């Protein structure tokens, strides 16, 4: 074979390879787009329905573009849900509960994570094993006694502070005290802090608490942000405890506000979807701006925990 023929064949092969790569690239974008549509469609449909009039909700065939879009009545469903059905209040309640619980988790988890990462003490491995094992046990196993204990013991004792049932205590206190996930996350981070920093502080005569407070906490801001955000999201989305403990409507969080609303106004899909948008929009906004913290935190600790 002549060198020209060989060269031509090589060129041909390179061209084919390039073409194959382009085709597979296009195929991947097609898959990515299809999955994107499947992922986002429920949100789009939710949003679309939330801008429809009651008549348009039941129009056949269903339309994607809502009839009230860019009309003066566009925000009517939101106004109705927020004011007449109290969703302003529910949103505030969800925010309060999630914020307090996340803040509490930050305190307990950094304290415990610090001890587990940087101190030696008797029973350390045993306690940490219990901590990890407890995450494997379904909440259904402990929620019944937790509720009974709250009703029979905490409620009478806490009367001067407003009781326990139908207050936010049971929504906040167990969540912030049982920060197994957070302890794990903080422990992982505190491991990575160089020993020299700690030793220098000891020589300067700093107390252990001072070392935790002025050296380790400032260093762990990214991890603490991750922990706070994840704890906030989990508590914002919490369903079981609000269902069990909250009976006064004014104290409802968004999750039970939404379920009770659905029970009462079954066919009002436009209002229901407006309520759903209200209850997920704050988290989506947080997610868009703090994606890095949230995703890494969930993926890495999930992987190890």
């Amino acid at each position: 074979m002549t060198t020209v023929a060989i060269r031509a064949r090589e060129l041909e092969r390179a061209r084919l390879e390039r073409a194959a790569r382009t085709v597979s690239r296009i195929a991947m974008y097609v898959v990515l787009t299809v999955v994107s549509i499947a992922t986002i469609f429920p949100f789009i449909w939710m949003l679309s329905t939330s801008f429809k009039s009651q008549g348009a909700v039941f129009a056949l065939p269903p339309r994607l573009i809502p009839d009230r879009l860019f009309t003066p009545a566009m925000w009517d469903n939101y106004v109705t849900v927020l004011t007449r059905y109290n969703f302003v209040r529910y949103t505030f309640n969800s925010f309060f509960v999630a914020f307090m619980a996340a803040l509490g988790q930050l305190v307990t988890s950094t304290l415990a994570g610090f001890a587990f990462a940087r101190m030696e003490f008797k029973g350390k491995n045993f306690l940490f094993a219990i901590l990890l094992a407890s995450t494997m046990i379904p909440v259904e196993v402990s929620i019944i006694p937790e509720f009974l204990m709250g009703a029979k013991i905490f409620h009478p004792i806490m009367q001067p502070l407003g009781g326990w049932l139908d207050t936010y205590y049971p929504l906040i206190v167990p969540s912030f005290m049982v920060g197994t996930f957070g302890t794990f996350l903080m422990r992982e981070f505190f491991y990575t802090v160089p020993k020299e920093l700690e030793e220098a502080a000891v020589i300067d005569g700093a107390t252990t608490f001072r070392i935790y407070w002025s050296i380790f906490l400032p260093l762990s801001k990214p991890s603490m942000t991750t922990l706070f955000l994840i704890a906030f999201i989990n508590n914002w989305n919490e369903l079981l405890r609000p269902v069990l403990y909250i009976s006064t409507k004014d104290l409802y969080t968004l999750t039970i506000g939404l379920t009770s609303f659905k029970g009462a106004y079954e066919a009002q899909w436009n209002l229901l979807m407006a309520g759903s948008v209200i209850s997920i929009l704050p988290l989506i906004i947080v997610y868009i701006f703090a994606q890095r913290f949230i995703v890494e935190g969930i993926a890495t600790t999930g992987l190890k925990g």
Partner: protein
Amino acid sequence: MKYKKITPYLFIAPMIGGLALFRIGPIIASFVISFTRWNVRTAPEFVGLGNYVEMANSDIFWLVLKNTLVFTALYVPGVIVVSLILAVILNQKLKGIAFFRGLYFMPYITSMVAVAMAWNWIFSTRFGVLNNVLKDMFGVSHPPAWLADRNYALLVLVIVTVWKTAGFYMMVFLAGLQSIPSHIYEAARIDGANRFQVFFKITLPMLSPVTFFVLVFSLINAFRTFEVTYAMTQGGPLHASTTLAYYIYRNAFEFNRMGFASALAYALMLLVGLITALNFGVRRRWVSQDIY
């Protein structure tokens, strides 16, 4: 570091105290309560194994258990396949990949109650968008009533749960894929391996510790499925989609049967424990031990 002996215990006290009070204590208490009949209003009455006997003789319990196992059998392979495929695609060097990654993860952080409302509406029988698309575009004259149909309700819960959680497992798989060193792939390519060979002979075995984690985690979560049932079907129609965790909730907090519900909770824990132990037992057979 030098510190007083008591210091570490002070640091872990709030966390361990909370764990003891709200988790460990209740887990033990639940076991004791499972031997009683207790409606909360009157004093608990010791009934020995009565609740467990009742459970074994209850048709509803076996149906609920079957539902939970069917849900798990559909959900776990479903979510693993979907999330693995997504992770493999997202592991390519393509433009805009970060956008897609962020998008796919999004359902995982949203409230199950809120997205369940949207899915309820999509699956709604007469006016739901799905059935109208099936009718108008695919010529299905009588599409199923989905959530109101005994044969489909549980399947809908599976679909919604896969949709909601696939993004999480995708991220876990992706982290695993990215920790496989690239020189292994290069070596395979030099040896002339094609894409499928690389995937099945290198990627999958190297990924097996991650797959193991995903398997254990998704199984545990499948067994305790509660929120999607609560928000979408309330276990209906006629218990057709009642999962074990939801059945526990109803017995405890709707029927006030604390003893029976605790026995059910222990059945759930036993189930989770057994399957997790089984997983760790067969781990060596398929999970790579010494990699990288």
